[in-house]
């Protein structure tokens, strides 16, 4: 089959990046968190809830609700609706769908929102019931959860490419430095490489500071056409390019690359930029080793050179490669599906110049990626988006 040329995202923008500050545990429901995010979107954009005519939702903890239940719950009357259960790839997937919806004028303003609560036992319950393959063929094997599954991937990757814990640790340490500038980050204490290395093992080679902390929170943004944003006087970032891929490289016996590697050429070609042009990069950091994989698969270096890349660059806000500037999930917390949105929402703030204490100076061009759904032995879903601020 001939591969056809994709329609560019001409005139599609993203506005009103919203974060509802996270808490470690919440007695509220996921719907409560999503409701706060919708409220913040409306307030920040200066619109009425009735102006929202498209809704895209992601959450692990909504119980039996899906997007349709939320329309009635929040009094929204929409003509376009989607529920995206893609875990860490939900934000990119949601953005892609919303962008096409407003481009085709099936909707004018789509609210993309992700939120999860974290009750004392919710994480374990999510783990236990994650997927059918996971229930059958992963959970009964030590119940180590994602930590054990990613430990296998990390161990194989580190051995194959000669990566040390120090190399991986640089990513976590830099993100903690960034997080100290983000008042909403749950991690407030500085982290040195020595502390990272001395942390207790969780599932070798995964140690404590390789793991995200499950928490409650919500993130959201609006997708619309440029003229809609202009008429509302809303500052907005232009969507330049996206990619999405599922179950890539199924024949690799173990995951050493994500789906990005299949589509990375198209990602930059569609945007008309090179990796070097990016001012700020937000990867999906469920584990720092997965971030290192993304540096390779997203074209910042070749496969196997991730460790060298990390050693050669300063990943902090003021560094030469500002990365996960909010602190990322590793230091802000992982609020379920909102973890997928965290990087994209922070990236939008960066190119809009509204990131406050974590602002990278002159950030105009950003990239955010997503990764999700370790259904069995590997993460299945991946995606990325490139977007530009109004000054570019």
């Amino acid at each position, binding site marked *: 089959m001939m591969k056809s040329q994709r329609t560019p995202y001409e005139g599609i923008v993203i506005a009103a990046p919203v974060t509802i500050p996270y808490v470690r545990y919440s007695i509220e429901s996921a719907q409560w968190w999503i409701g706060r995010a919708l409220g913040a979107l409306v307030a920040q954009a200066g619109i009425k809830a009735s102006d929202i005519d498209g809704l895209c939702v992601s959450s692990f903890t909504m119980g039996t609700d899906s997007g349709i239940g939320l329309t009635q719950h929040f009094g929204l009357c929409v003509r376009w609706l989607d529920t995206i259960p893609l875990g860490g790839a939900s934000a990119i997937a949601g953005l892609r769908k919303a962008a096409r919806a407003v481009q085709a004028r099936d909707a004018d303003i789509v609210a993309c929102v992700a939120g999860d609560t974290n009750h004392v036992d919710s*994480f*374990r319950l999510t*783990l*236990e019931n994650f997927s*059918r*393959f996971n229930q*059958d*063929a*992963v*959970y*009964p*094997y*030590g*119940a*180590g*959860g994602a*930590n*054990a*599954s990613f*430990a*296998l*991937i990390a*161990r*194989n990757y580190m*051995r194959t490419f000669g990566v040390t814990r120090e190399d991986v640790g640089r990513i976590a340490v830099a993100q903690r430095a960034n997080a100290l500038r983000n008042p909403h980050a749950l991690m407030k204490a500085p982290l040195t490489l020595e502390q990272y290395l001395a942390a*207790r*093992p*969780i*599932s*070798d*080679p*995964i140690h404590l500071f390789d793991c995200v902390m499950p928490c409650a929170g919500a993130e959201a943004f609006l997708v619309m056409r440029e003229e809609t944003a202009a008429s509302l006087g809303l500052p907005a970032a232009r969507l330049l390019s996206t990619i999405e891929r599922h179950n890539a490289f*199924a024949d690799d*016996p*173990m995951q050493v690359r994500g789906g990005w590697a299949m589509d990375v050429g198209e990602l930059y070609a569609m945007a008309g930029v090179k990796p070097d042009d990016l001012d700020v990069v937000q990867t999906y950091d469920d584990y720092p080793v997965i971030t290192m994989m993304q540096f390779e698969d997203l074209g910042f270096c070749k496969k196997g050179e991730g460790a060298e890349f990390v050693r050669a660059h300063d990943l902090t806000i003021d560094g030469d490669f500002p990365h996960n500037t909010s602190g990322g999930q590793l230091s802000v917390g992982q609020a379920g599906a909102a973890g997928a949105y965290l990087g994209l929402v922070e990236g939008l703030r960066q190119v809009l110049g509204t990131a406050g204490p974590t602002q990278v100076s002159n950030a105009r061009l950003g990239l955010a990626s997503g990764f999700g759904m370790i259904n*069995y*032995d590997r993460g299945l879903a991946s995606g990325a988006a490139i977007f530009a601020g109004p000054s570019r």
Partner: protein
Amino acid sequence: MLQRCEACGAFAYPAREACPSCLSPALAFADAPRLGTLLAETTARVPSDVYFRERAPWRIGLVKMDCGPTIVAHLHADCAEGAPVRMSLQLDKSGQAVAFARPEGETPNMADDRQWREMTADPKFRRVLVTNGRSVIGQEAVVALKAAGVKTVFVGVAEPWRPFAGEDQLRRQEGVEVVTLDAADEKSAADLAADIGGKVDILVNTTEYVRTGGLLDRKGTSIARDEIDQAYLGFINLAQAFGPAMRMRGADGINNSVAWVNILSVYALANWPAFGAYSASQAACLSLSHCLRAELRPGGIKVMNLFTGPVDTEWFQTVPPPKVAPRAIAQAIVSGLRGGLEEMYVGDVAEEIRQRLAANPKALERELDK
């Protein structure tokens, strides 16, 4: 045992509804080549599940099977990354079949591995109660269990002042304690349990009561009553006396309580009119064993049923061969425990009945009427 596509021959794992190579729905479970390579391992130190939390650190790995799929597996301590492993499916404490990777070849004291022992009911180092020491099967079981490294075998004997064949040899063995037990007597079972109930890691129910005849050639119910008293009610007495403590001791140290073994006639599955009433009493015991299995499962105790055809003992004197040697039953008890199995068929008759029952139950019923 993995799913194999009948259309394209590809193996698939985890179990699914259509072939990932050709989308054919014809996926049947088939014996798969057992060799693979350990790609990567990890040690889970803070599992989220209470069972594994108690047993952490727990080592698992990802195995690339020579026949295709990759399988997350429990690891034997002697498995090394990059090295070949031999896979098997084992029943874990919850009764679920799980993949277990062992080194390709034998290694020293291989069966003593901590994680392997968690999946099996290896009698080595454990204490076992054999309920009937008067029977040849019971005596052979004692010998086989001692040879398998059992620490202490308690052997139940009813009315021990009455001498019996093989008694001297039984009493002479090191680590064998003859205890008073008449399983058909509720008080006898309870008294013994009060004495040693907390020390029984494996119970081997060798209760035996074989009489010929079905319905019309017998008069009255007295023999049937005896069959029920000995086999069925005896089973209930033993279960009520020893089951609760065994269930509580499923995680009691490294040589915890692990298994209950029943020796049942294969005619529990299909009535053999020549021994028709006996068959019925065995069927009752089989049904009860499923109940016991369910009730012991919360404690992680396995129930193994060992099905046998006519045994080479006096009550089957008139039955022509092939017959099962008591020693073969004793060895099957040990190997079944070592494998952590729930069911075993010992001897050619038992195996034949199993296959014929699966193939055509009505034909089997008709053919047993000879």
